[in-house]
């Protein structure tokens, strides 16, 4: 029971307490003390409102702490005490405190790894040790990262609020990038991390129901996640084209497609919505051959207008090959400045082979371009499969 409340409500309790006491560190300490106290206080069953109990207990603990500090003539503590004693713990009707916390964690004055670590720590309620394990870094490294980020919020006085409307689009991009990074880190082989990203994206969607890019990001995650059961067989990567589509998760697909339909109705496309729409077209196709490639290509054209980078053009070329043939696609691919990107060479190799030309060199470059063992094995297998025929 307590574990479940902790997991679901830790971020909310910290968000409320941070507003009330004005310090993330103090808020975290107080919320953790409150959960520790709950272990005995809830022995005979939880109170009617567990989160309310946690917030009230944490607030009292924080006020006790501030009283002790204030007694030592700590001016800041005295001011914080006045604020904490007077401030309501009820949340405003319009905005959840967690939204302030998300924007503070993802503030552009913090570097990306710090944004990611803080978001998982404060909103996700993950311990530093858990985050370190998920990101495959030593725990002291992650602890130092979190401590440094919290110190910067305090010392540089990064504000605790939702940005003004004028700054919102840019600041929201940073929040979405953090969540998507957590997802892509977890996509390969750490489903728990991807699951955290989905959980946080669901929370953000709940908090910002009118932002189509938030819905787009959640849809993109769900539709990508739906393929997890089919994406590897006995440890080998299976690309989209070779996946057993009967293993795809239908419930996730349905939810993702529903979100995409909602985005289309809103008519304010953005990069996450367009990527989600592309994933939705694939998810609706019974096979590669039966995929609506013309729709995929149209969506990539739109995506390229939002994101004119070469990676989008590379992916667009894959769709173009299905609609207009490999020669047209290769003409698009050749001039792209993606020499150091292994997928560039893999796409080139595939197109060269389909044109009956020598692709040996392109395959070698693709294989040399990635450190991921599963990806390498997959590229080798593709190279050898074509050689054998």
């Amino acid at each position, binding site marked *: 029971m307590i574990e479940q409340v902790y997991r679901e409500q830790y971020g909310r309790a910290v968000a409320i307490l941070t507003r009330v006491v004005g310090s993330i560190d103090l808020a975290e300490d107080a919320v953790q003390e409150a959960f520790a106290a709950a272990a005995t206080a809830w022995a005979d069953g939880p109170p009617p409102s567990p989160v309310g109990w946690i917030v009230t207990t944490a607030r009292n603990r924080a006020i006790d702490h501030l009283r002790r500090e204030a007694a030592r003539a700590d001016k800041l503590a005295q001011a914080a005490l006045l604020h904490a004693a007077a401030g309501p713990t009820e949340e405003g009707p319009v905005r959840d405190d967690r939204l302030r916390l998300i924007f503070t964690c993802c*503030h552009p004055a913090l570097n990306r790894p710090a944004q990611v670590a803080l978001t998982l720590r404060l909103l996700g309620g993950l311990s530093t040790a858990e985050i370190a394990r998920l990101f495959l870094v030593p725990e002291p490294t992650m602890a130092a990262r979190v401590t440094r980020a919290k110190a910067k919020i305090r010392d540089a*006085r*990064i*504000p605790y609020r939702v940005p003004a409307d004028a700054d919102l689009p840019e600041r929201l991009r940073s929040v979405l990038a953090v969540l998507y990074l957590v997802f892509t880190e977890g996509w390969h082989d750490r489903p728990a991390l991807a699951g955290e990203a989905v959980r946080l994206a669901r929370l953000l969607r709940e908090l910002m129901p009118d932002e189509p890019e938030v819905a787009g990001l959640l849809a993109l995650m769900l539709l990508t996640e739906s393929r997890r059961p089919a994406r590897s067989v006995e440890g080998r990567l299976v690309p989209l084209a070779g996946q057993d589509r009967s293993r795809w998760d239908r419930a996730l697909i349905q939810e993702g497609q529903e979100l995409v339909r909602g985005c289309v109705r809103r008519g304010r496309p953005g990069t996450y919505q367009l990527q989600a729409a592309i994933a939705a077209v694939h998810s609706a196709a019974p096979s590669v051959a039966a995929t609506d490639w013309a729709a995929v290509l149209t969506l990539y054209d739109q995506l390229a207008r939002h994101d004119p980078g070469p990676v989008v053009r590379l992916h667009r070329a894959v769709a173009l090959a299905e609609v207009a043939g490999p020669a047209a696609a290769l003409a698009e691919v050749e001039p792209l400045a993606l020499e150091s990107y292994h997928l560039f060479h893999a796409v080139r190799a595939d197109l060269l082979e389909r044109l009956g030309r020598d692709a040996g060199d392109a395959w070698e470059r693709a294989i040399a371009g990635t450190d991921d063992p599963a990806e390498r094995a997959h590229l080798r297998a593709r190279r050898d499969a074509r050689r054998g025929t």
Partner: protein
Amino acid sequence: MSHYLLDIWQPAGGTPEPAELAVIGARLDALNAEIRAAGEFVFAAGLHSPDAATVVRPDGLVTDGPYVEGKEFVGGFWILDVPDLDVALEWARRAAAVIGLPVEVRPFAG
């Protein structure tokens, strides 16, 4: 309200043409007037290049020139008194756009 130092990172080497400098100077005056009007101005100044610097070491030794040779030096600075980092960053963004050089924002300690 909190104090922040905004310092301009100027690359070592040439300065812009006089005509260009005059345009930048006029825009800076306008920006400073805005910061004053907002009640957030404490102090601002431009600095001579490190060629004009003199360093006094803890043992009393006086030497000519900068303490360390760098690719960049502090070309000028503001001290502002603003509510939080976001306000300081917004003034820094405007300042950097006017000068065409990076502006570092540092909170005062204590």
